[in-house]
C-alpha cells in the first residue's frame, strides 16, 4: 500500500484514516487560498496568481484523496439506510422513551 490509499473495502472505509486527516488539513488552506487569491488576482498581483494556482491544486488533490473513500462509504451506507430510517422512526417516538 502506498502513502495514500485509493482502494477501499466497506470495512476499511468506515475507519478514520490518514487520508481523512490530510483532507482536514488541506481543506481550510484551500478556503484561505480562495479568499486571498481571488481578491489579489483581481489586482493583477503575481502573488495572487500563485496563491490561486496553489489553491486549485489543493482542491484537486483533496478530491483525488477523499472521493474514492466517500464513494465507498456512501455505497455501503445507502444499502443500510432504509433499515436505519425504520429504526429511527421507531426509536424517536416519545412513548418509547418513557
Amino acid at each position, binding site marked *: 500500500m502506498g502513502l495514500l490509499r485509493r482502494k477501499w473495502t466497506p470495512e476499511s472505509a468506515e475507519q478514520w484514516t490518514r487520508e481523512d486527516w490530510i483532507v482536514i488539513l488541506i481543506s481550510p488552506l484551500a*478556503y484561505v487560498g480562495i479568499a486571498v487569491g481571488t481578491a489579489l488576482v*483581481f*489586482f*493583477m498581483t503575481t502573488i495572487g496568481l500563485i496563491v490561486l494556482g496553489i489553491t486549485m491544486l489543493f482542491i484537486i488533490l483533496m478530491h483525488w484523496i477523499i472521493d474514492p473513500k466517500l464513494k465507498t462509504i456512501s455505497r455501503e451506507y445507502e444499502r443500510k439506510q432504509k433499515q436505519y430510517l425504520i429504526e429511527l422512526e421507531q426509536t424517536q417516538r416519545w412513548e418509547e422513551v418513557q
Partner: protein
Amino acid sequence: MIHFAVLDWIWIFLFIILMMGCGVLFYRLGKRSESDFFLAGRGLPWWLPASSVYATHTAVDTPMWVTGVVYKYGLTGIWYAFFAAWCAISAFVSTRIFRRSLAYTQAEWQGLRFGGLGGELLRGWMTGWQIFMTMFNMGWIGIAMGKICQYLFGWPAWFGLVGFSTLCAVYVMTSGYWGVVMADFQQGIIAFCAIIVVSIWGVKAAGGPNGIVDKLAVMGESWRLNPFHFTGLFSGDFPLAWFITMMVIAVIGGFGMGTNIDWYVEAQRIQSARSVRDASYTIWWGTALVILRNSIWAIAILGFFVLFPNIKDASQYEMGWFRLGFEFLPVGLVGFFFAAILAIHLSTVSSILNLGAMYATRDLYHHYINPQASQERLVRVGRLSTLLILVFSFFFGLMMNEITKWLIFALWIMAAGVWLPNILQVIWWRFNAWGYLSSWIANLGLSWLVVWILPMAGVLPNLPDYLQFWVLMGLTAFIYIPVTLLTKPENMDHLVRYYMMCRPLGFWGPVRREAEKRGLLLDVKRSA
C-alpha cells in the same frame, strides 16, 4: 428614491413569476410526506443543496456587513466574514457524522446521541431555542428589506417586511423544501450574476483594477490591499490575537455541531443530500462559493472606497455596495439589480421559514404531541407552522430596534461557552447530556458576569470580544467537565447504537470495543 423604467419592472415581474412557479411546479412532490416537505425526500444531488447553502447565506444584510468591514479595514475585512470556514473541516467530519444519523434536525440528533431524560431535555430545549431563533432571524432580515424598500421607494418599513416575506411564504407553504431548494438554485444564480455585474461596474467607475491600486497609493492607503495587515499582537483594529481566535473558532469548530449559528440551517441541507458523499460536497462547495463571493464584494468595496473615501458614518458606508448598483448601473439593469436583491432576500427567508416549521413539526408536534400522525397530517402541520412562524416574525421585525442589543448579546453568548461542548458532544464518548446541559446553563450565567457585571464592578477589565471568548470558554469548562465526570455515562446500548450508525471521529474507544465484543463491528486491524 429610485426611478424604475419599464424594463426594470419587467425584470422584477419576470423574477416573481419564476419564483412563484417553483411553488406550483413542486406542489405534488412537497405534499407526499414529512420527509419530502422538509428534506426533499433525502434525494438531492450535491449541487442543488450546495446552491441553497450559498443562496441562504447571502441575505440582504450580508452585503451591508461585508461592505462595512472592508470599507473600514481594507482587505483584512474579509476575515471578519470568514466564519463560514467552519465548513472546511465540517464537510469531512461533522457533516459526514450528521448525515449518517438521518436526524431531521439538530434537536433530533441530540436525542440520538444522548439518551434518557437528559436527551429529551436537550431535544426540548434545542427545539424551543431554534423556533425562537427562526422567528428572530426572519424579523431581523425582514426589517432590513423593509429599510431598503424605504430607501428606494419611500415605502413604510413594515410594508417591505410583510409584503416580501408573505410572498415567499406562499411557495414555502405550497411545496415545502422542494420549493425552497429549487427557488434557491435560480435565486443563487441570479444573485451571483448580480454580484459580479455590480462589482464590475463599480470597479470600472473607480478606474479599473490598476486605477484603484494607483489611487490607493496616492491616498497613502495601500495597506488596504494587504489581507494580512496586522496592527500588532493585541493592539489596534486588527490584532494578530483576534485573527488567531477567529481562525480557531471558525476552522476547529468544524469538528463539532452547532459551533456556528449557521449549522442549524446547513444541517437540513446535509440531510437532503442523497448520500454521505453528496452531503460533504454540498457543504464544501456551497461555502466555497460564499467565500469567493466575499472576495468579489471586497474588490468592489475597495472601488467604492476610492470613489467615496471620507464617509465616517457606518450606516452610510455600509450601503456602499447597494449604492454602486443603483448609482452606476445603466437604466434597465437597475431592475435586474433589484430583482437580485429580492432573490437574495427570499432565498434566506424561505430557508429559515421551512427550517422553523421543521422544528415545530418534527420535534414538537410529531415527537411530543401526535407521534402516530399520518404523513398527510404532518404536511398540513408543516404548512400551519410555516404560517405561524411568519406571523410571529413580523412582531420581532417591528420591535427589532429595541431588542437588537439584547439579542446580539444572546447570540454572542450562545457561541462562546458552548463552543467546546459542541465539539465534545461529537468527539468524546464520555461527554453526557448533563455535561452538555450544564454548559448551556453555566454559559448563560457566566457571560453576564464576564461581559457586564464584573467589568462594571471593576473586578475584570473591559476585555475585547475575542478575549471574552477565551475567558468564557475556560470558565464554563470548570463547570461542565466536573458535571460530566460526576454523573453516569450515557447508556452503553444507546451509545453502541449511535456509534454503529454514525461512526464518529475522536475518543470513542470503549464504545468501539463494546461494539466489537458484541460482534457488530469487524476489528479491521486484527482482521488485516
